[in-house]
């Protein structure tokens, strides 16, 4: 790890003056050095300082469990990191769009959310900025054709625009253009925390409400020197794993549906709801709304409720085992899953993939294991990996995680520590500080970075949903595939549009 950066643990606060301000050359050199040594870019974002833009980088070091933070002043342009570090490519596009700081030498610089820059004083024509209207990568030649899909898709799914460069049925390249769900979450958090902040976090990605609300709570707790009591921390772990169970089960069913294997599609559709109803048993909301709050949890699992949850969890798991066993035990399903949508380990590493998508390429990346916080400091859930990088690997990793999450919940439910579930409110946030909070959501790493101003208000709140890292993984998985396999590959990644677009 480079010596010039500040080192933090997950969920720790530092004073802004302790974040090293480097020259652009040092900043780049240190980042590249960190990444060559196995670090990973968890967050890279701009923050306006005076007339210019300051870049902040958070690098995650899985081997030591530390996060390193450094900064540099960029001005209106800076040399792009992307040619040497592909995992920076989407971040640099975001910084250019938000703050008008141009990464010189970026190979594919274009908008990602189609909004006007936040920084005043930038030249702007003031006209509309139509979403999706931009240059696309194009292949030319005999028999080459382009397929454009979206933003409105055929199912009940979120909007996004997809451009396939095809030769017959074969896809040479897929380009994904998002931004249709952009609703200004990061901008609205500035000046907070306010009454709406937690709700913006719970709706950053509705199926990941618990993970985003937990990351936000950790960040706010770090900034206000507050902690969740032990019982609250365990409840957070239970809520997080219930969220994983529901979504993984739903995805396995949907994968069955995408290859026409209807029994599992049908069973898992119901079972996903059973897990959501367990979350509703705990807090009244199927999506965990209102359960996670700064300071701990807002709803307790008293003994009878915990006992009911445990019993219903056991019943649901027995049916999930049956449904998934059928899916992964059917040769016709395996023929469609195996060697479809392969992403190599090297590509996954270069792109900085996270979560299920990374673990299905054999990478041991899991915040619960590498950067444990809360209950995961006490109890370890084994990291589930598979080597083949295909649709099958992504299904298999989900199935492994379902079993391990259920075992974790069952273990915690019978050993809930006594005591309060939430600590007393704190006076306010520490001024001129920075905190990083990471949570392993069901899709992967949810990373929040909060900066406060001199008055202890949020000056910048950077949210990185795992989908932000992983959309490019889906694009790569489609190369040399049949276009008819797109739904299957897409579902195997199961990424969030709203979590990306914010």
């Amino acid at each position, binding site marked *: 790890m480079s010596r010039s950066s500040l080192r933090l643990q997950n969920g720790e606060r530092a004073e802004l003056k302790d974040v090293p301000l480097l020259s652009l050359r040092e900043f780049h050199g240190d980042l590249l050095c960190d990444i060559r040594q196995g670090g990973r870019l968890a967050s890279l974002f701009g923050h306006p300082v005076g007339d210019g833009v300051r870049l902040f980088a958070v690098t995650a070091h899985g081997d030591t469990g530390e996060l390193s933070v450094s900064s540099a002043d960029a001005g209106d342009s800076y040399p792009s990191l992307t040619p040497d570090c592909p995992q920076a490519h989407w971040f640099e596009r975001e910084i250019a769009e938000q703050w008008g700081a141009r990464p010189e030498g970026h190979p594919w610089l274009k908008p990602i959310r189609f909004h006007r820059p936040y920084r005043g004083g930038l030249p702007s024509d003031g006209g509309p900025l139509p979403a999706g209207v931009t240059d696309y990568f194009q292949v030319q030649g005999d028999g080459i054709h382009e397929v454009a899909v979206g933003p409105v898709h055929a199912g*009940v799914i979120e909007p996004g625009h997809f451009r396939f460069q095809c030769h017959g049925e074969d896809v040479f390249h897929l380009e994904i253009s998002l931004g249709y*769900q*952009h609703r200004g979450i990061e901008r609205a958090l500035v000046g907070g925390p306010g*009454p709406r902040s937690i709700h913006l976090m719970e709706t950053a990605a509705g*199926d990941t*409400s618990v993970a985003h609300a937990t990351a936000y709570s950790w960040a706010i707790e770090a900034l206000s020197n507050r902690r969740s009591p032990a019982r609250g921390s365990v409840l957070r772990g239970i809520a997080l794993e219930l969220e994983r169970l529901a979504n993984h089960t739903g995805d396995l069913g949907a994968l069955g549906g995408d290859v026409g294997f209807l029994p599992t599609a049908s069973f898992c*559709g119901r079972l996903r709801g059973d897990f959501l109803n367990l979350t509703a048993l705990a807090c009244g909301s199927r999506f965990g709304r209102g359960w996670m709050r700064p300071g701990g949890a807002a709803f307790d699992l008293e003994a009878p409720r915990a006992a009911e949850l445990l019993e219903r969890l056991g019943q649901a798991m027995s049916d999930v085992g049956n449904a998934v066993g059928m899916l992964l035990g059917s040769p016709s399903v395996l023929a469609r899953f195996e060697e479809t949508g392969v992403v190599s380990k090297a590509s996954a590493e270069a792109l900085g993939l996270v979560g299920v998508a990374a673990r299905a390429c054999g990478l041991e990346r899991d915040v619960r294991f590498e950067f444990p916080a809360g209950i995961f400091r006490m109890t370890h859930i084994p990291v589930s990996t598979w080597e083949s990088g295909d649709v099958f690997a992504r299904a298999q990793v989900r199935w492994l995680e379902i079993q391990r999450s259920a075992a974790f919940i069952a273990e915690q439910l019978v050993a809930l520590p006594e005591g309060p579930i939430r600590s007393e409110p704190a006076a306010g946030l520490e001024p001129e500080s920075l905190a990083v909070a990471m949570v392993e959501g069901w899709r992967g790493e949810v990373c929040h970075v909060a900066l406060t101003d001199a008055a202890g208000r949020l000056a910048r709140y950077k949210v990185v949903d795992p989908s932000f890292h992983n959309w490019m993984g889906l694009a790569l998985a489609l190369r040399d595939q049949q276009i008819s396999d797109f739904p299957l590959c897409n579902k195997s990644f199961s990424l969030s549009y709203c979590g990306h677009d914010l």
Partner: protein
Amino acid sequence: MLRALAARLKQGQRTLSYPKGTPTLPDRFRGRPETDFSRCDAGCAARLKDCPTGAVVETDGHRRLDLGRCLFCADCAAACPHGAVRFTAEHKLAAWSREDLVLPGTEPKIRPDDPKFRKIARSLQIRVVSAGGCNACEADINVLSTIVFDLSRFGISVVASPRHADALIVAGPVPRNMRLALEKTYRALPAPRIVIAVGACAISGGPYAGHEEVCGGAAAVVPVDLYIPGCPPHPLTILDGLLKLTGRL
């Protein structure tokens, strides 16, 4: 084949008898609130101002709760120790006009007598447009097609093409980036078109109300016939709304 049959036996019959029987919702479920703001004192008034979406509105000195903005977080129930707001287990929330969502209101109105509603009594085809929410409303709309709710037994189905649809469900606050796509989808429906706004975002902008990135809900772009509040609404709340639309309830 035998394995599939054995699995089918084990998984059992799971379809709800709704609307004949209503399943028991969890005790912490937050459904239709009952309000009596006359119980509030000055302290409550200050705390009620902290409603994240400003759903507790004050007009002519009378306080009311706007379900179209409500996120059902129950912060208002905690804000008034005298019990001005109490969330009940009632899941039926759909309303035919924006005003009917403001509590305490008048008696729930019946379906307006519009010829376009008569055509869909036995068959309702719906196209869903996801426009800028968090995908939770979409998730709980999708749930209606699972074996638990089995939407098709009511003659209602979700279709891929707007050309095949009688009604449009809009979820989300409609970002500026989605405005054109929503307008085009609406125009692609054959007339007469029915529009259903599902969730706080589509009704009022929800937690994004006032953001310059969004239009502030479906009604800013297309005329809305039915409002189904919630954040997100429970699947039964959505189903109740759809059955009211077809005249089955």
